[in-house]
Every structure is written in C-alpha cells, then in structure tokens.
C-alpha cells in the first residue's frame, strides 16, 4: 500500500550496530537539512497582529450589523425570526408601530424594532439569524474588534449595530454590482 518502508536491520549484531549508527547520522542529517532550509531560506509565516493585519475574507462572520434605509432608519421589520432561530438565545427584539411617509407621500404604519439587543458574549456566529431575515437587513460583518474586559459591554444595542464599516459580503456584492452569490437564503 505504498507505505513508508520499515527499518531493515541485519541479523549480524556487529553489522546491525553500525547500521544503527549510520542510519542515525544520515536521518538526522536529512532532518537538519529540512530545518536548516526552513531557518534560512523559507519566509516566515507569522503575522505581527497589532502592527500588521490580515485581509479577512468577505464571509468572515463576526459582529452583526443592521442595514438602514436612506433616512437612516433600520429596515428591520421586527418580525422576530432571528430571535426565534438563534440557538444561543442571544437576540432580543421588541416591536413598535411607527408612522413613515412613503416616497409617494402617503403615511403608513409599519413595524420597527423598539429594542434590538444582541449579546455577543453568547453568540456563536452561526449566521442563522442573517439567513432567516426576510428583508435581508441583518448581516454578520468582518468587524471583530469588540473584545472587552466587561461582559456586559458585549450586549450591543441597536445603535451599536448600525456601524457602516466594514461591509458584509452581502453589501459588498450589492455595491460591486457583482452577482449576489452568498448570504442568501
């Protein structure tokens, strides 16, 4: 089965002794060649994180983000689907009725989130909430710099979820005009 060959040793103890000595030296030299090559000729892979940052993938799932419409209001309709599907029970949405003026000028009652809280300390970033959102307003973005010494600060209110940067994959595809391939349900 194409295995690594096993060690073959002579039955003569004297020859076997020198075989052991010789194979020890040779195989150690082979190993030293590889490690020496790595030490002198191959480039380092460490990224000195705070000074140098990696380019994260567009699909990286970190802090949530709620999209807003032109007037700056969240387009969330407070349907509560994300709250229901969340395996960690970390989303809390309550509903309120607000009156908005449509572009046609008529006034309309719509559902808007009254309270929208995500407890990031409990979240496991599974993306289920973003996938069930019927109006595509909840997304997971690449913003991962929210670690904190106080677990209560990880409870993010709606204002904290409206930050514009960085974009999620969904929005990046929207702005690029590229075909909408990810993040859809």
């Amino acid at each position, binding site marked *: 089965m194409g295995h*690594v060959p096993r060690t073959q040793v002579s039955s003569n103890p004297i020859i076997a002794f020198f075989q052991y000595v010789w194979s020890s030296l040779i195989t150690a030299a082979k190993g030293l060649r590889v490690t020496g090559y790595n030490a002198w000729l191959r480039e380092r892979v460490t990224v000195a994180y705070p000074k140098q940052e990696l380019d994260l993938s567009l*699909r990286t799932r970190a802090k949530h983000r709620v999209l807003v419409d032109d007037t700056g209001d969240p387009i969330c309709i407070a349907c509560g689907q994300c709250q229901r599907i969340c395996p960690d029970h970390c989303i809390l949405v309550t509903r309120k009725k607000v009156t908005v003026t449509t572009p046609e000028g008529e006034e309309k009652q719509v559902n808007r989130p009254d309270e929208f809280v995500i407890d990031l300390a409990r979240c496991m970033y599974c993306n289920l909430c973003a996938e069930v959102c019927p109006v595509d307003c909840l997304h997971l973005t690449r913003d991962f710099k929210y670690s904190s010494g106080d677990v209560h600060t990880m409870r993010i209110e709606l204002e904290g979820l409206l930050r514009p940067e960085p974009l999620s994959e969904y929005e990046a595809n929207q702005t690029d005009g590229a075909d909408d391939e990810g993040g859809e349900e």
Partner: protein
Amino acid sequence: MQGHAEPVHHEEMLINMGPQHPSTHGVLRLLLRLRGEVIESARFVIGYLHRCHEQLTEQNGWIRAMPLPDRLDYLSPITSEWAMALAAERLAQVEVPERAEWLRVLSSELYRIASHLVFVGTFAMDVGATTMFLYTFRERELLLDIFEKLSGQRMTCHYIRVGGVGWDLPSGLDAEIRRVLKTVESRLPEYDDVFTNNRVARARIEGVGTMSAERCRAFGASGPVARASGVDFDLRRDAPYGVYDKLDFDVVTGERGDCLDRLTCRTMEIRESIKLCRQALDGLPEGDIRTKLPARFKTPEGVAYGAVEGGRGECGYFAIGDGGEAPYRLKIRSGCFSNLHLIEKALAGWKLADVVAILGSIDIVLGDVDR
C-alpha cells in the same frame, strides 16, 4: 475503578495523568499504575467535557442544532456536520442538489487533510519533535484560510446544512485550493525527513503499541486506527454517501497496527484526500447548492442513521423522528470514543514515555469523546 482500588505495593506508584497534563489532548484523565517507568495497568476517566449535545439537539431542533456538531470533533468539524445533516436528510427524505454533494466532498476532504495534519504535528510533539508541530500547523493554516473564504469561519464552519451547503464556492477559490493542495503535497516529504524516517523517531514509534485487527473489531474501532491494524473498512467505500461512489481513491491499510502504521496511514490518507479534492474540483457540476426547506423543517416518524467517515473514525448520528422539528432521540456515535477504549490494553507493559506516543497515535479529540 476496579483494579485501582487495590492497595499500591511499595514498588508501585499510582500516578494521575491529567486532566491537566500537556499531552492528554484536552481533559482526558489517565490513572497509571507504574513500576519504575513501566506501566502495570491503566484506566482512563472521561466526561470532563460533556456538553449534552444529544439533549441540545433534541431540544433545539435540527436547524438550530446544525452549528453544534462543529463543536464535537473540532479538528474535523465538516464530517460531523455532514453526518448530522445526513441523518436528518435520510429521516425526512430530503433531496440534496448535485453541486452541494460535490461541495460536501470537497470541503470534508479538505478538512480531513487539516485534521490529519494536526495529528501528525501533535503526535510528533508527543514524541518530542516540537518543530514538526509548527510545520504541520503552518500548512493547516493555509487550509483554514480556505475555509474562512468558503464559509466565513475557520473551525466552527457551519457549512453543511440540512439539504445542501451554506455557501457556494466564491470566485477565485478554486485556483487557491489547487495551489494549497500543491503546497501541502510538496511539504509531505519534508515531514518524512524530519520525523517519520528519523532514526530516533523510528525507535520511538516502530513496533510500539501494536493492536491486532481482532481487538480493533472487538472494540468497535474505526477510522485510521482500525485501518492501521489491517481492518479494511472505510465508510466512503463500503457505505458510500455523497458522491464518493463516483470518485477514485484507495483505502489505506496498515499491517502491524503499531504507532508507525497509524502515522503512515494518516500521511497516506492525506495524499488520498488531495487526490479526492482534485477530482471534486474537476468534476464540480453547475447548479443549485441548497434545497429550500420549509420554514419549520420537520422530520417524520421513523429512524435514520447517517454515518460518514470522519477524520477519526466512523462518525454516526442515529435519530428517531416523532414528526416534530427536533428528533425525539439522537444518539451520536463518535469514532474517538470507541477508539479510546483500545488504550487500556494497549498501554500495559509499555513505558511512561510510550503512553503519550500511543495515546497520541490514537488521536482522540475530547470534545468528540465526551460529546
């Protein structure tokens, strides 16, 4: 603890290895009865990482529990996900699109490479070659980068869903996967030079911890551990799921079942997986990646067993449906759990230094053992 309740003779030493020990791969606890450096008998204690996964799934339901298998065998999460999705799909008779099947093969084989790389590195570190650990993790990092681009997370991917996969292959990733596979393939001979063929390493692993095929069968061992002992059993070939029946690959088996065989089985499987990944990339059909499930996905009454060849043996999910959103009962069959039971007999008579080598060669993940 029978056998360890007996008084310790004064030449003997009862020593507690773990749960906080650098090389028990997590929170395994071993009770070793030593005479000098020689193991008289060994018992293991598990359960320090029990997280009620079965119960969580029974309460949360299929869809909400799909991210959880990632947390079981966290070094090879895709295969656990696939097993769970397979159980749900077989129970509810969900059709999976062709492209999704191919993507599942691709992603699980990629993660199998990553998982075996971790094995090679940690095993080498148990035997003392710290540098190998860094080398294999360096290559694994390339694979995790692929998963970050594919699914958004490096380890807890949540990639395979009931009825398909979560995301399609983004543009440009095809070429990158091929490049990474080439890199990994070119580094495998280096591992042989640094570790596998080294005289000192051979002295530590060749002929150590042999397990017969009969014992492996008797203990229900599977995966590379059983194959290294000569048990010619691989679910990918013997109970094909996904599109493995359309792919060309060899099942690697060993002869003697010692640590060297268990190591080479995995390094050969890395090569086989590279082959499979290339075939999956070549044969990837166009089409849908996910079947649209109803908003409240329910499984009918009945039983189903979804099993895949995981990185560490047969990973199976046995589900009993009762018509609700969640299975009435879910039983997780973990490869590590069965394989771990081999060590009590395998350890007796070997030296203390061999404990870490034998334990390392079985390659357990305590998250999968305790579930």
